[in-house]
């Protein structure tokens, strides 16, 4: 597994001359450069920082009395509160991206009241912290140059409005374009992919379709930008128009692949309750610092962990399941659960410059405990992954593993084998245990009542003390 460097500058933080993030002895710091001094002081002294912190719109920081990472040009070092898990927009569901967009605009409006403006509107400046989207880039604020349009307008449209419109009106899975295009969805592509009728919607016509045409039209023309000034009412009107456009975009999670899974399971009520009790007991026993629930669906089992105040990430491949899970988090005001979209057979890779700007999933681990419930048969049978490879992967991302063995005689496995030849002669409980024992020590195994399934509590072999 690729290890994160414990010291030095953070690879994703190199574009902004105002400063950068660095890590020292496991603590995260941000160096503020002298070139950003006036803007930083205005942010702190004008009341803007306080206003944003009071409304939970930005991650708080303290000024740290430590030497800068690079002495030349350094003004200050600040220590932001650490976000426990960094997630990326291609891992967010529709409502997460929408809330991130609205948070960005709210911050922009607040900054404008204090004479400042956001100089960028990247989705990567938003993280989910204690159940809410918060802004993490303290150095993104600049003194507003009177009469100038919003410098981050294009970026906002590419990073937020275009993917949201595509998810709402073309295909929910198009948020994956953000994985390919690190600076947001190109507007000409969004314009091509959106249905024709979206040209009849003024907001989408202007901010996406016309915007794309305008980019194309002016691409080889020289324009004296200084001649044109924007009135404050117009500036606020543009922000308000973007906000209205985002608010109107809606997507309803339908019962796709897994969202209705629990209505269509082969557990009895008693068996399902027993499974929940076993998972709860295993978690009580190992008291993990954090949990990743792989194939978490709508978060029923993730909540066993998060309700114990354990920071939990609930991953699932189905956008509907993640959407339903997140809406439940919002409804219940949950602060310890973060649902994210993830195809475990093709997890988020390292992307950007040098494959290092955005971390791969495994670089963001390991988790203290992983839940792999009703998952094994999908990996082994649907994806042809041998038990040995599954065990190797899981041992790289966790210390404790709570895994469910689902036999071939189970109705869910039979369903997977209906349309394909059964080539899985090694798919037996004995083979499963033998392969996993190479990487883990089996601490406990409990058969689930009224079913043929078994739950295991394992600990990574080299992690034992």
């Amino acid at each position, binding site marked *: 597994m690729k290890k994160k460097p414990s010291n030095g500058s953070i690879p994703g933080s190199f574009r902004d001359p105002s400063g950068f993030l660095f890590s020292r002895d496991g603590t995260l710091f941000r160096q503020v450069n002298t070139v950003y001094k006036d803007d930083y002081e205005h942010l702190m002294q004008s009341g803007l920082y306080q206003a944003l912190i009071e409304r939970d719109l930005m991650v708080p920081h303290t000024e740290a009395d430590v030497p800068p990472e690079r002495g030349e040009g350094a003004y200050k070092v600040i220590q932001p509160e650490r976000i426990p898990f960094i997630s990326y927009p291609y891992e967010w569901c529709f409502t997460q991206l929408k809330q991130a967009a609205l948070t960005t605009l709210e911050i922009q409006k607040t900054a404008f009241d204090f004479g400042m403006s956001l100089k960028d509107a990247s989705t990567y400046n938003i993280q989910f912290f204690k159940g809410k989207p918060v802004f993490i880039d303290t150095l993104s604020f600049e003194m507003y140059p009177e009469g100038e349009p919003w410098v981050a307008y294009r970026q906002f449209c590419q990073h937020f409005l275009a993917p949201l419109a595509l998810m709402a009106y073309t295909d929910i899975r198009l948020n994956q374009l953000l994985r390919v295009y690190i600076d947001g969805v190109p507007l000409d592509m969004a314009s091509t992919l959106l249905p024709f009728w979206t040209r009849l919607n003024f907001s989408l016509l202007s901010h996406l379709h016309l915007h794309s045409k305008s980019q194309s039209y002016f691409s080889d023309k020289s324009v004296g*930008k200084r001649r044109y000034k924007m009135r404050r009412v117009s500036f606020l*009107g543009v922000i308000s128009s973007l906000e209205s456009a985002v608010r109107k975009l809606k997507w309803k999670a339908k019962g796709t692949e897994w969202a209705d899974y629990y209505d269509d399971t082969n557990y009895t009520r008693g068996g399902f309750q027993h499974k929940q009790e076993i998972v709860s007991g295993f978690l009580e026993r190992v008291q993990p610092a954090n949990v990743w629930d792989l194939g978490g669906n709508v978060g029923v089992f993730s909540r066993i962990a998060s309700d114990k105040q354990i920071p939990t990430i609930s991953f699932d491949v189905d956008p509907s399941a993640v959407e339903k899970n997140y809406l439940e988090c919002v409804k219940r005001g949950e602060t310890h659960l973060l649902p994210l979209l993830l195809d475990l057979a093709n997890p988020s890779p390292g992307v950007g410059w040098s494959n290092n700007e955005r971390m791969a999933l495994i670089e963001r681990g390991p988790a203290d405990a992983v839940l792999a419930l009703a998952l094994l048969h999908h990996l082994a049978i649907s994806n042809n992954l041998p038990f040995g490879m599954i065990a190797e992967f899981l041992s790289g991302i966790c210390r404790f593993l709570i895994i469910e063995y689902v036999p071939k005689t189970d109705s869910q496995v039979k369903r997977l084998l209906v349309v394909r030849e059964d080539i899985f002669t090694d798919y037996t409980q004995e083979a499963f245990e033998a392969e996993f024992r190479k990487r883990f020590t089996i601490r406990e195994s409990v058969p689930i009542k009224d079913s043929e399934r078994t739950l295991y509590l394992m600990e990574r072999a080299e992690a034992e003390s």
Partner: protein
Amino acid sequence: MVRSVIRVVAVSFLVFTGCLVVSTPSYAYLDPGTGSYMLQLLIGVLIGAAFAIKFYWKKIWSFLTNRRSKRQKNEEEAE
């Protein structure tokens, strides 16, 4: 100022009408920032105008209705 606004509106009108036909992909931008800048100015002008119209609408409406009732009164007096 008024001349600048007219110029922005005039240039951007071409973009507006151009977009009403089906979009075609352009594979490379020399400077997508200029297009974003100009488009934002246009939208700002339109929205600013809409705000102004909304703000002054009552005054305009009462001005028009007053004129109309005054004209009617004059016509009645003339008869």
